[in-house]
């Protein structure tokens, strides 16, 4: 289902020669890659490699300085961020990003509402059918239903990350993009999160950014390694594990 030799219909997302510069600094250099549908693809690399920058291009947070991004064969290079959720692409941020003063359930309910009603100023929002139930179902799915009535900022770090994933799932995305979903988590929380990701990936394509290589090798179908803004290796986990350059990058990092 996720063979790299698949024709284009097996590719959900593609970047053609994308670069990103911040001022004079080239954070990403000419990256071309394709992401197979139905797979878990991980983007790894040491801190500062350009993973989040690449992630932002893929998820539409900002356009590349040059190059092209295609989602399901359609050019989305300059499509504004807010349209991505409606196209079937959802994301969670590296830094936890919830609506801090809203209740946990309202966080998810608002995310759900984006697909049915954005500009209605007259009907009571409570009358939008089915949103509260769907919100509860999503909270159940990501395992924080017991927190539903609490204000989001009072949740534990791991719970907030789970909430963010619940919000990303609200648009029932075909492509789920996650930037370091286990950042700052305890080993126990990390294990729960990885299990959840594997479960979610059964029904959708997942692209996962992670700097801890060990964490993703076991669950990924494919791994891209970024280093200094360049695509170092693109292959299966075992290919990546044996790659001399990757070993050097990750060993080199440990020396610092």
């Amino acid at each position, binding site marked *: 289902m996720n063979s790299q030799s698949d024709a284009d219909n097996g590719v959900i997302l593609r970047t053609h020669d994308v670069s990103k510069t911040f001022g004079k600094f080239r954070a990403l250099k000419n990256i071309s890659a394709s992401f197979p549908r139905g797979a878990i693809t991980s983007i790894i690399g040491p801190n500062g490699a350009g993973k989040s920058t690449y992630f932002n291009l893929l998820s539409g947070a900002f356009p590349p300085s040059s190059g092209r991004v295609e989602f399901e064969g359609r050019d989305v290079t300059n499509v504004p961020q*807010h349209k991505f959720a*409606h196209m079937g692409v959802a994301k969670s941020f590296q830094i936890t990003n919830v609506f801090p003063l809203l209740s946990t359930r309202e966080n998810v309910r*608002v995310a759900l509402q984006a697909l049915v009603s*954005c500009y209605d100023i007259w009907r*009571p929002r409570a009358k939008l059918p089915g949103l509260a139930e769907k919100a509860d179902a999503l909270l159940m799915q990501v395992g924080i239903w017991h927190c539903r009535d609490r204000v989001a900022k009072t949740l534990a770090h791991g719970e907030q990350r789970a909430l963010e994933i619940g919000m990303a799932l609200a648009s029932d995305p075909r492509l789920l993009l996650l930037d370091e979903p286990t950042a700052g988590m305890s080993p126990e929380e990390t294990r729960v999160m990885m299990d959840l990701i594997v479960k979610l990936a059964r029904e959708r394509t997942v692209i996962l950014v992670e700097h801890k290589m060990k964490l993703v090798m076991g669950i990924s179908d494919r791994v891209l390694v970024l280093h200094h803004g360049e695509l170092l290796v693109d292959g299966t986990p075992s290919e990546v594990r044996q790659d001399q350059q990757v070993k050097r990058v990750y060993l080199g990092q440990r020396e610092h």
Partner: protein
Amino acid sequence: MSDVPQTIADASDRSNSLFDMAVRHRAILASVFLLMFPLIMPFKALAANILIYGLYALGFNLLFGFLGLLSFGHAALFGTGAYFCGIAIVHFGLPWYVAILIGTLGGAGMAAIIGVLAVRTRGIYFAMVTMALAQCVYYLFYQAEGWTGGENGLRGINVRVIDIFGLKFDFLDPLTRYYVIAAFVILALFVLSRILASPFGAVIEAVRENEARARASGYNVMLTRLLTFILSGAFCGLAGALAALHLSIVPIEMLHYETSGMVVMMALLGGMGTFFGPFVGAAVFMLLENLVSLWTVHWQLIVGAVFVACVLFFPAGIWGTILRRIHK
């Protein structure tokens, strides 16, 4: 001892549900208060002023308190509402209710123009852009002397009788005038309450809470800002129109940046992001202004000191602080 907490918990539960009920019927409660207000206020004209400026602050607060955008140019919306209403009556001889509608639409339209140019910016830049554009509006109205009376203001907005469905009310009677104005303010309160409870109200909250997340969830943040600005402009335009009728003149000062600054103070005094805070802020501000200016010409100093003290010691504003005390 062990059964005491139970009772306390019950009591606090009850007071919380009472609080929730009050929140749900906030428009009704606020209206009842505004209807009784002239009974405790000796000066009816001042009471009507408080209504009008409370409405102005309410419109401002929708943008500032609920969406989180600080505008320093709201005088342009308030003033446009007043001038459009006045021009409709003075130059076109239109009936008062049409003039009020035109003033309201004028405020919204001016907000649309300023908004299109300003909503791309944020924070201090948004404040600066709105202020600069409001100065342009001031200049335009100042120059269009034939329409606006320029420096002298627009005079001759004489509405003596308010006739609704065959009933005639004497608009020159201060108490009647108060209640005519109150009718529009109460209508605005219900509309605002409705907006805040609507799906769009949820979007406003979401954008205030976290723009990036709102955008990633699929909301067009820029358009949300623009629409909120326009709604804010409609409320402020209505306030301006009512001011024109109440004063029977539109002084050019209504467009002055001091009028923009004043509404910021009112919203902060009352409590940003609260439903009724703008009226409390307007009342405190105007009562202080009127009472203190009776015994000193330096009333602005005193009002300024009260304002600073309030911001330092009650950052949630007067009404916001009261709400928190009750809720706890």
